């Protein structure tokens, strides 16, 4: 096993998975919150834009999103997302991978936040309006803080799914864990079970604490009603 880890540079693959997860998590949290706000807004066009986004990305396979990001943004539109230097290709793939992961998971973050909003009694937003808070103040001070606290568990689930979904970006050659796995299988098919065991263990180590943490946090942060 150690030999596998060394020969295929497994630790840098794990580090790549972690980096992808963290950046994509941050990005999708921001974008997902923004889309949730669109869906909560009183303006019909914005609501429509938000729900269309969610419908499109929730129903498109992630592989398609990843490949599309690569083909459309880079190949077709020729948009540069990285500087032209020695790591140009890797950087481009890495950033496009994050972009795709963000675009896709934002839809799920949005829905998680909306489920958090549903934990808030409707009267609170009305009370906020009746003391003269504007829509923005209402969101910032009343709705979103409670929505996040009520959405810890579903947000945690999105994060766990995201961690595992980073494996899909093998499709555009980002050297993370599943990419390393593919190479191991190719060159060391004699130790197939060890390879699978190693990869499974890696993801358990990455996601198990997330599950425990969100379970704990959701209780700790829950708003007492």
């Amino acid at each position, binding site marked *: 096993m150690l030999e596998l880890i060394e020969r295929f540079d497994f630790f840098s693959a794990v580090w790549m998975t972690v980096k992808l997860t963290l950046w994509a998590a941050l990005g999708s949290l921001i974008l997902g919150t923004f889309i949730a706000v669109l869906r909560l807004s*009183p303006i019909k066009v914005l609501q429509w834009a938000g729900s269309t986004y969610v419908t499109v990305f929730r129903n498109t396979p992630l592989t398609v999103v990843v490949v599309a990001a690569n083909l459309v943004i880079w190949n077709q539109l020729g948009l540069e997302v990285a500087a032209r230097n020695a790591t140009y290709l890797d950087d481009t793939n890495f950033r496009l991978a994050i972009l795709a992961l963000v675009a896709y998971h934002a839809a799920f973050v949005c829905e998680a936040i909306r489920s958090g909003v549903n934990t808030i*009694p409707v*009267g*609170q937003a*009305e*009370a*906020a*309006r*009746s*003391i*003269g*808070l*504007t829509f923005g*103040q209402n969101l910032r*001070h*009343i709705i979103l*803080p*409670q929505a996040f*606290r009520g959405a810890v568990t579903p947000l945690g689930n999105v994060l766990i799914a995201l961690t595992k979904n980073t494996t899909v970006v093998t499709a555009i050659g980002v050297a993370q864990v599943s990419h390393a796995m593919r190479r191991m299988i190719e060159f060391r098919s004699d130790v197939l079970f060890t390879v699978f065991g190693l990869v499974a263990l890696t993801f358990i180590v990455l996601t198990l604490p997330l599950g425990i943490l969100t379970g704990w946090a959701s209780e700790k942060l829950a*708003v*007492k*009603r």
Partner: protein
Amino acid sequence: MTETGIAESGTAPGEPLVVLKGVNKHFGDLHVLKDIDLTVHQGEVVVVIGPSGSGKSTLCRTINRLETFESGSITIGGVELPEEGKALAQLRADVGMVFQSFNLFHHKTILENVTMGPVKVRKMKPEDAKKLATELLERVGVGHQANKYPAQLSGGQQQRVAIARSLAMRPSVMLFDEPTSALDPEMVNEVLDVMVQLAKAGMTMIVVTHEMGFARKAGDRVVFMSEGSIVEDNTPEEFFTNPQSNRAKDFLGKILTH
């Protein structure tokens, strides 16, 4: 605290403050408010009473535009209600509203519930808002609970905090939508007492309630609604002892039997 600053508006006592003219509202096919004409004067306490579904809550909610309406006009202190946006938010701040279900912000302490409006809407300095909030909480009798969260308080205490939260905006008129009907019986009076106190201090109030004791003690007028219309508008004494319409007689017959 002193009685000053309770009813702050440009209107002199006895002048019309809230004026509804020919207000109509539908929920789909349902005509919930039918040609409502109602004038509430500065310092007046108007009790709204009527069977379930007659449009009492909708009336309150239209007055501060939590609901829209199709025709007619509503003015407060002579100013027409703005359509939406910042201007409306400011005007709403001038109209206090107390709900049946309290609707305190559950993630904020009692003190924060009361300071929120003054700080965010009135742009009051946090320390001034805190002072004001503390005073108001004292006045409604929950001063010692300031640092607790709403879920730690009884219903009656929560409703009194909700009243303090509205008062902190220095509203020119306050709307109460069945403020005691979600309360256990032993807590009803502690809330009504606060409301009576407010009425005596000169606050203009529109109160939806079936508490006849309150209507008699603090009400200047009783407005009886049925099926979206104002059917009677009279003094409490006259309304309870000598209702004119059959609908009011019928309704009083039902609520007086228990």
